[in-house]
């Protein structure tokens, strides 16, 4: 039971015992600080003594009267007088054991008297009034317990002798009521819970309670509002507050001060001390200070606050155990390896070892070393908090609009312009968007109708002295009133009037060119960079559209027009100092803008609106001002080899494609470095282009794709261009490592045209061969047989004029390289010769390249025949073979005629077949009619071409072997044209099919196909 707990409980019990209770408590607690240590021995001594006393007094009277105890006590006091003097504490402890309420400042001498009083307390309750509150209920020895525990009992505890302290008599409710009515002090009577006695509160007590309740000073006597004595008034007084006379020392100068001043004066004289400058007003004004300086943490406090604990040592692993599992032990090889390794390289810096018991484990030798190293680590390696960026990776991706919102842009292949027989290197669209011009390695320039894919015109270049027929570049004059196309081929630049579009424009252009007369300036002896020559109207080339020729000293790789259509530039990469020439059409003269070569020029471009010229060398793009004749800008492309360049129609942005797969966008206003670089292509970028109207640009690459990007340039100078790739156009085949070589946009529609590197003719032939074979395999199981049967058919159809046709074909193109090719061509030749009936026409056709190309490329379908016919028609053949054949088919006069009609019908496709069928009544059944076999042959020959819709025709094709009666062949061997068939048949490793017999008679070859 500590005194503290008791003092805590006091207010709860509402014990109005005494005013000095606090004092007594505090003193008691002071003592109890050291009472705990001494308590035990003291009490034990006490007990012993007590027990000894008791044992002494055993014989004496057992009646426990007060005197004996008193004696005991006094005797004890006497005997332990010295001890008492030394420490009152022990005495107090004793008292404490005896009585909870005993206080230290009560004198022991009074004790006897007190006890006597307390014994009589119950008898004389009024004594409480005058007695000091300290001694109020010292008799109860039950301790500090709730008195409710004694509710059941008549007593409330025990006195010091162990006698019961009886509860005071308590009246019933009636008594309560009566006292309430009668007793004037009833309202100030409270019950002491410790004793159960009723206490009548005094007037002071009541005042105290009231003061406490109203939060006033508890002492009612204390004065809250003392009168104020105003010593120092605001009024000025005449007399000082104190009227002392002034002290004498205030009149005498201070010696110490004099000494100090003297020292300072001396220091000033000696220069040790500098007089402080008089502060100027400005300085005073500028006396700023950091208002929030306190907020800045000093380095030291920051380090304390942001303390980084040292990293913990790793916990020992299994391998470090004295008895590791056997798999952790190293084998000998591993141990050797460990030994040979550098200490830094070792994965473990110890060797696991096994001990049978912990006692055998030796001291760890490296303990000091390791700890020293660790200390070094901790000391030498600064620890620093690593700030991890808490960034969502998706936030780093720029917000791009969806391609769907950026329409229109090209999405699908619409038209293929078929016709070239070699790679198409360059294309250009006319300013109205109706025509497309393409230049190819086969030496031809073709003009196409954009909307249908029709080749309107084809110009084949004559093989020059150099023999290089590749068209390197074509460019349509951008001016709508000029109808001219510049073509770069070899060392010449040719200006061609295509004669398409408005006739007025065409004629005007011709007139302007024709009316040119050389000025005097021209004749003066200036250096001539390019040789201009015009083509006379009498020249054969004039009809093809040739108007002007510009002979260059070196090979020309590019031509480009100025926006107004009068100037054009040509690039000769190997021309050194003359690599760029600017030609003026109206005056027919050429200029060399650059004296010195700045590198190999890749391409040049005119600025669309201002007099600037962009010149791209391998790594840089230089922008020249043509008026001031100076270099205005030099763009760093950051790529290895520039391939192509395009200028935005606004003129402030250019894109550059390079052979290292990059496409760079430059904003000329902003920087000479790329604003953005796109690396979407897998192979070299061959061409780039802007759309004139829509915010689109495209890049063509050797990987066979064209990537179309949305490139929005804003009028707002602060807004950067928005570049979003929107579409990859695929579909081009890659041949010879070349993919898409050029791409241009339609001037008004969001369409993109591409030049393809592809040998179209070959491709088409192969495709058709496959198609043909596929059709026939339905009848004949194996492919070889199919081919053979095809061959048979072909040979048969070739009949008499095969030889000539083969010859024709041989002259036609390069030697046939494959069986399929050969066959196909033979068949085609057959058709031709059969139809034309005159070899001379064929040869006439073959002499011209366009029909030749036409034949090759359009051998895809039956229309090739009519194509050929129409071409032949142009060259003077008057026979309208188709018409004739139709007539023949309409009214067959004899069996022979019918046969011939069949044969011919084989080439005029199904319309004729239908008529034949109609007239012969074949519809009734295939085998009912004479001449069925011939018809079947016809069917077979046209089988591939018959449209799906007509397959309702009931003709059944029998086994092919049945279809070739000998008579048919014998009747068709009557031709005696002299040719060399051998070459035609065998040059392409073409085996004569089974059943074919080749008869050689002198120099005359007759071919006869017989069936086995």
């Amino acid at each position, binding site marked *: 039971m500590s005194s503290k707990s008791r003092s805590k409980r006091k207010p709860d019990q509402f014990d109005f015992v005494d005013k000095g209770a606090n004092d007594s408590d505090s003193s008691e607690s002071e003592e109890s600080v050291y009472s705990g240590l001494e308590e035990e021995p003291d009490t034990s001594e006490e007990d012993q003594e007590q027990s000894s006393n008791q044992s002494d007094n055993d014989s004496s009277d057992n009646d426990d009267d007060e005197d004996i105890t008193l004696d005991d006590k006094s005797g004890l006091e006497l005997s332990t007088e010295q001890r008492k003097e030394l420490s009152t504490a022990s005495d107090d402890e004793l008292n404490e054991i005896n009585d909870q309420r005993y206080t230290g400042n009560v004198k022991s001498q009074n004790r006897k008297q007190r006890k006597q009083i307390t014994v009589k307390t119950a008898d004389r309750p009024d004594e409480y009034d005058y007695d000091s509150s300290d001694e109020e209920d010292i008799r109860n020895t039950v301790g500090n317990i709730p008195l409710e525990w004694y509710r059941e009992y008549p007593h409330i505890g025990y006195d010091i002798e162990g006698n019961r302290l009886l509860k005071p008599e308590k009246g019933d409710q009636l008594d309560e009521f009566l006292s309430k009515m009668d007793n004037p002090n009833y309202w100030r009577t409270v019950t002491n819970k410790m004793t159960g006695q009723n206490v009548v509160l005094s007037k002071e007590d009541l005042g105290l309670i009231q003061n406490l309740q109203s939060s006033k000073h508890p002492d009612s006597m204390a004065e809250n509002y003392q009168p104020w004595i105003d010593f120092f008034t605001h009024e000025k007084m005449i007399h000082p507050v104190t009227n002392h006379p002034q002290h004498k020392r205030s009149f005498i100068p201070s010696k110490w001060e004099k000494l100090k001043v003297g020292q300072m004066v001396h220091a000033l004289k000696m220069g040790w001390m500098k007089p402080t400058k008089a502060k100027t007003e400005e300085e005073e004004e500028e006396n700023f200070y950091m208002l929030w300086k306190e907020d800045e943490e000093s380095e030291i406090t920051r380090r304390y606050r942001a303390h980084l604990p040292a990293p913990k040592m790793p916990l020992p692993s299994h391998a470090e155990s004295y008895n590791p599992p056997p798999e952790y032990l190293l084998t000998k090889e591993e141990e050797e390896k460990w030994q040979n390794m550098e200490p830094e390289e070792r994965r473990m810096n110890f060797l696991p070892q096994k001990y049978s018991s912990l006692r055998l484990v030796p001291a760890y030798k490296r303990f000091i070393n390791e700890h020293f190293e660790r200390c070094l680590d901790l000391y030498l390696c600064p620890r620093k908090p690593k700030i991890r960026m808490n960034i969502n990776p998706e936030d780093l991706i720029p917000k791009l609009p969806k391609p769907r919102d950026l329409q229109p842009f090209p999405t699908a292949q*619409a*038209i293929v312009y078929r016709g070239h027989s070699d790679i198409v290197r360059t294309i250009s669209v006319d300013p*109205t968007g109706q025509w497309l011009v393409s230049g190819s390695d086969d030496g031809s320039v073709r003009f196409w109708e954009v909307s249908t894919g029709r080749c309107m015109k084809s110009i084949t270049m004559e093989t020059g002295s150099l023999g290089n027929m590749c068209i390197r570049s074509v460019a349509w004059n951008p001016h709508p009133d000029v109808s001219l196309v510049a073509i770069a081929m070899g060392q010449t630049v040719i200006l061609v009037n295509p004669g398409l579009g408005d006739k007025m424009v065409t004629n005007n252009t011709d007139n302007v060119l024709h009316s040119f007369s050389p000025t005097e300036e021209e004749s003066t002896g200036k250096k001539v960079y390019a040789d201009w020559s015009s083509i006379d109207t009498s020249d054969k080339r004039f009809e093809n559209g040739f108007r002007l020729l510009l002979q260059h000293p070196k090979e020309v790789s590019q031509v480009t027009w100025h926006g107004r259509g009068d100037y054009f530039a040509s690039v000769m990469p190997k021309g050194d100092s003359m690599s760029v020439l600017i030609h003026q059409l109206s005056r027919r003269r050429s200029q060399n803008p650059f004296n010195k070569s700045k590198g190999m020029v890749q391409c040049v471009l005119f600025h669309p609106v201002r007099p600037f010229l962009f010149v791209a060398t391998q790594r840089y793009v230089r922008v020249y001002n043509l008026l001031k004749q100076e270099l205005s800008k030099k763009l760093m492309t950051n790529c290895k080899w520039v391939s192509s360049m395009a200028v935005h129609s606004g003129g402030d942005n250019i894109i550059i494609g390079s052979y290292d797969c990059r496409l760079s966008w430059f904003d000329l206003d902003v920087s000479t470095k790329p604003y953005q670089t796109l690396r979407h292509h897998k192979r070299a970028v061959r061409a780039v282009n802007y759309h004139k109207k829509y915010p689109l640009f495209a890049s063509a690459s050797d990987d066979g794709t064209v990537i179309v990007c949305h490139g929005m340039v804003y009028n707002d100078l602060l807004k950067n261009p928005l570049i979003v790739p929107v579409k990859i156009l695929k579909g081009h085949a890659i041949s010879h490592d070349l993919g898409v070589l050029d791409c241009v946009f339609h001037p008004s529609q969001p369409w993109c045209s591409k030049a393809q590197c592809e040998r179209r003719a070959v491709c088409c032939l192969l495709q058709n061969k496959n198609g043909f074979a596929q059709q026939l395999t339905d009848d004949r199981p194996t492919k070889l047989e199919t081919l053979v049967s095809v061959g048979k058919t072909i040979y048969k159809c070739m009949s008499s004029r095969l030889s000539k046709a083969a010859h024709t074909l041989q002259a036609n193109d390069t030697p046939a390289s494959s069986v399929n090719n050969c066959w196909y061509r033979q068949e085609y030749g057959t058709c031709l010769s059969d139809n034309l009936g005159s070899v001379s026409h064929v040869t006439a056709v073959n002499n011209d390249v366009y029909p030749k190309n036409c034949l090759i490329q359009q051998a895809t379908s039956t*229309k090739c025949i*009519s194509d050929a*016919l129409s071409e032949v028609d142009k060259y003077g053949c008057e026979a309208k073979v188709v*018409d004739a054949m139709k007539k023949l088919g309409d009214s067959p006069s004899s069996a022979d005629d019918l046969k011939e009609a069949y044969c011919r019908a084989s080439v*005029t496709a*199904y319309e004729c077949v239908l008529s034949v069928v109609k007239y012969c009544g074949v519809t009734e059944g295939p085998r009912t009619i004479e001449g069925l076999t011939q018809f079947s042959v016809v069917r077979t020959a046209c089988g591939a071409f018959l*449209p799906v819709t007509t397959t309702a025709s009931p003709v059944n094709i029998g086994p092919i072997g049945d279809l070739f009666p000998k008579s048919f062949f014998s009747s068709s061997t009557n031709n005696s044209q002299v040719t060399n068939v051998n070459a035609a048949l065998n040059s392409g490793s073409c085996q004569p099919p089974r059943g074919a017999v080749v008869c050689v008679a002198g120099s005359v070859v007759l071919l006869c196909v017989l069936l086995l």
Partner: protein
Amino acid sequence: MMADENTPHVQAKFFTKQSQYSIPDTPYSVPAAVGTSELSSLINQILKGSDDSVDAGIEFDFLLDGEFLRVPLDKHLENRGVSSEDIVEIEFVERQPAPKPEDSLLHDDWVSCLQGCKECILSGSYDNTVRIWTTTGAPLLTIPGHSAPVKCVKWLSGDGGPTCRFISGSHDQTILIWEWHREENSVECVHACRGHAGSVDCIAINEERDKFVSGSWDKMLKLWSAAAVAEGDQEEQLEAPTKKQKISKKVQTRVPVLTLSGHTEGISAAEWLSRSEVCTASWDHTLRLWDMEKATQTSQMQGTKVFLDMSYSLLNRQIVTASADRHLRLWDPRTTDGAIVKCTYTSHNGWVSSVSWSPVNQYLFISGSYDTVMKLWDTRSPKAPLYNMSGHEEKILAVDWSIPSLLLSGAADNHLKVFQYNDEKHGT
């Protein structure tokens, strides 16, 4: 009916406007997942029950709220957001017969344009000639006259009389008006209309057949007189491009009555909507309506893609356009509010180069595309065409449905294909 109780059923009421197939107006419970063929057999059974004379093998098509049933019924209802609890009213019509390939007329070059009239077919070709064929496929005439590929041909008067007249426009920027004497089978160029500065891409003749308009790549729309004699005609020597000149040497040059500008790109198609109103479609993504009497543009409809062709039906007063984005669009020129594209028909795989309404059926039209397929459409079936007509091996450049029983198509494979279409039962 289906005996299975577990399958969901829909109450359906059938009706038809074709009186020979009328059936009692009682609702039938049909399985929800029923298709067209089952419904067709059901109708056939009902018809057979009521009248033995009806042939049982008739194929029907079914219309719900003006749209053809092309998927199972429940899916169709789900797509349209119609409750399957209510009684569904289904109209049935006899299925359109399939067009049959009839003939193929071989040209010397690509067939760029064509038009049929009663017994003859007129076709223009890239070999600069115009040809006249009989509807049975016999060639009547090959007419050289233009010096560049012919882009458009139109019959001016082709019905019956001994003399027929027709017009042809060409890349050589001229329009020639021809007279064809049927009995002699000879042709004569009577007028050469000069004035365009680009290829003449379209011609449209008004109902009175005394005027026609032409659209050209030079962005101009010109109105010409089609009368035999007009003011301002001048005699002119027409240079003969080939030696097979059959026409007379004297032709009269005609100048345009009116020239209207407004389009920013070439005009691809033109049609007369009424006596004075002309609609043009252009490469500049617009349809424009012109008043020919006031010589002004009255309104404009903005599209999103290049218009390659357009056709106007007198039966339903609607326009169908063919675009470079594979779609066909149905327009109503009478509406002025925003939603003027009434329907979009998508099935082609390439540019749709030409389109033509049926002259007798207000629901049907045909379209030809660069994907070599000609399609027959019903306006009530926007998702799928009724029939695909394949046969061409190259781009189809022109289609025509001037003769009700013949569908014509001309293509870059030099063929003009004729399909027979038997539409007797569906006259409006």
